């Protein structure tokens, strides 16, 4: 566990130091007055937390320490604490075990979020844990998406179902039947990246879900939305729209090894309470880790 913590910390370092440096320059044993609160709010916003969440956090700080002397460390500590409290209920790892077999995992997200890479990494982890699983190349739209997943399937050493035509829903139906016959523990379905404001593409996604439910009415056991940590406030809309369309059950946040903080996650947690299962911190197959609220909050605020 130490290695990923270090990686996350390294990834978050640049940004968190920006935020915490900001806090340090702002406060050197000053009284927590309105002006300072406003500046702190701006600092939080510049970490993608959004206006509403930033205000909320600043108000909580004000309630505790308004008009008192305060040090930068104390501010960081209080923010980290509040963020941890917010995120804690959402930190739930995904266990691929359900009442029935196979455990169907549907993976979705906007274009370029990192769906295929995430599936590759998850497949490897579950395979190593001894699960029997198969992958379904449901992105029949993007050029060479299937080839990309094929390479990941090879790396993880798991079978991949590929569509003979462009019909994603048909492929999913066949693949699920085969998986049932084989007695697979897990089936992971990749889908084409789609912007949530494209009605037709969202309808297609609903259709895929309906087809899955024809085979198992309780499936998909997990509907994972993959979010890019670089994304700003639009991530909130993404979560809400996908959730409404296909009942998202949890989130995976990718590209946290950059300088983006994924601060919007705090806002998402506050507004939706959706579980955050894992975070992606690199391109290698082992770079997917369980989400920890404490580490995330601490790293965001730490020097």
């Amino acid at each position, binding site marked *: 566990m130490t290695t990923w913590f270090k990686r996350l910390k390294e990834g978050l370092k640049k940004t968190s130091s920006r935020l915490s440096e900001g806090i340090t320059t702002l406060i050197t044993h000053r009284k927590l007055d309105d002006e300072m609160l406003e500046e702190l709010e701006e600092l939080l*916003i510049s970490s993608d937390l959004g206006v509403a969440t930033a205000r909320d956090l600043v108000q909580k700080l004000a309630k505790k320490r308004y008009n008192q002397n305060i040090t930068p460390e104390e501010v960081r500590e209080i923010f980290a604490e509040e963020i941890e409290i917010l995120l804690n209920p959402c930190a739930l790892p995904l266990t691929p075990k359900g009442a029935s077999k196979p455990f169907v995992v549907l993976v979705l997200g906007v274009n370029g979020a990192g769906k295929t890479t995430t599936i590759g990494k998850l497949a490897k982890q579950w395979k190593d844990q001894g699960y029997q699983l198969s992958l379904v190349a449901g992105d029949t739209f993007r050029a060479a998406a299937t080839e*990309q997943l094929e390479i990941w399937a090879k790396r993880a050493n798991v079978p991949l179902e590929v569509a003979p035509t462009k019909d994603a829903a048909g492929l999913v139906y066949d693949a699920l039947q085969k998986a049932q016959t084989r007695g697979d523990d897990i089936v992971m379905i990749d889908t084409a990246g789609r912007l949530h404001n494209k009605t037709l593409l969202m309808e297609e996604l609903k259709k895929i879900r309906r087809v899955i439910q024809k085979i198992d009415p309780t499936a998909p056991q997990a509907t994972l939305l993959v979010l890019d940590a670089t994304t700003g406030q639009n991530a909130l809309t993404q979560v809400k729209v996908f959730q409404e369309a296909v009942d998202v059950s949890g989130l995976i946040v990718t590209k946290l090894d950059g300088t983006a903080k994924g601060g919007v996650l705090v806002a998402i947690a506050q507004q939706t309470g959706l579980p955050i299962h894992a975070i992606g911190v690199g391109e290698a197959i082992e770079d997917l880790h369980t989400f920890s609220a404490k580490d995330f909050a601490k790293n965001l605020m730490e020097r």
Partner: protein
Amino acid sequence: MFDTLTGRLGSIIDRLKGRGALTEADVKAALREVRIALLEADVALPVVKDFIAQVQEKAIGQEVLHSISAGQLVVKIVHDALVEFLGQEVVDIELKASPPVVIMMVGLQGSGKTSMTAKLGNYLAKKQKQKVLLASLDIYRPAAREQLRTLGQQCHIETLPILAEEKPLAIAERALQMARLEGYDVLILDTAGRLHIDQDLMNEVVAVRNLAKPTETILVADAMTGQDAVVIAKEFNEKVGITSIALSRIDGDARGGAALSMRAVTGKPLKLLGTGEKPDQLELFHPDRIATRILGMGDVVSLVEKAMESVDQAEAEKLALQMQKGAFTFEAMESQLLQMNKMGGISSLMGMIPGINKFQDKITQAGVNDSFIQRQIAMIRSMTKQERKDARLINGSRKKRIAMGSGTSVQDVNKLLKQHRDMSDMMKRMQKLGKKGFLRQGLQGLMPHR
């Protein structure tokens, strides 16, 4: 989010209604909301601060035009400043160099480089009649080169044949050679997605740049990018040296504040917009469109523009003079109604006012629509000159005649008369406020039964 923002600005606009020149307090109040709007659109904080400071300076002391409110004027000033900030002109891809002209695409993972490469190739081949070669240097992401090959095939553009086990620098060299030997006009190099803090990969792309000496190095960024856009653009610009910016996924519903951040921090022009998943869905960058989108208040902007265009200054002054004499004739009323029509009719005016949505039902119920205005004009035109000057002349039989002449009913004529009375009463009250006060309330006074 959008609705609440519009609503919020709407209420500010209401509060600012009806004053002379913009005061510092007015401007500050409106800009506070604009600041939040920009932050929610993902414009980076330092950029927002700079920008607001500039706008504040421009806005204070500006004269408020009649028929628009101070708040609306502030929004318009902000919009114009945004356009200026984003670069006012449409800048095309630079092709002035000896062929093959090399274009290099760089950016983070998943920002849309490969799609943008194919789109740009397609645009240059179809619209600019260039002979284009595409080459992918992305040996890291599985099947990335195959993706570009497939896209190239889809739009009939040549791609560099793929050789396994080849390093990016060697691929670039081979691509250059092929482009030279086979007489290509343009070579587009699609590079692997990389984090700006990944020193090894940044060194690699710098080596490719030194070899290929691109005329354009385009940073491709996702329109959904958050506050980090500043860091990304700055790092890519400092380490690789970019010449322009392309924004992908503008067809999503993100407000695209990243565009402003990146432009501000690099000073480089935005040139391309990805507007869909198909190869031909590419547009040259229009600052106007993005400014409107970032601000989320395009309607107010066009309202102000329309008001500026169509409200006839002389007409308005003539009217004001009449008002001062205390006579609100039907002629004056007609000229007001006509001006309203010039501005696109009541429905388009209503649609352009933020926060009006909640009153939409009531307005419809009251029967206020464009044909209502048309009928009123028709009734006024069916009056005699004397009647138009003096409403007291209009008795029962005159009403019948007016109704017949305008194709309306006596009830309609009664309504018109009542409205005229209400308006004259209001005008008399307005007189005490002076000429300016009236002019700004003019349109509002037309609303019946408030």
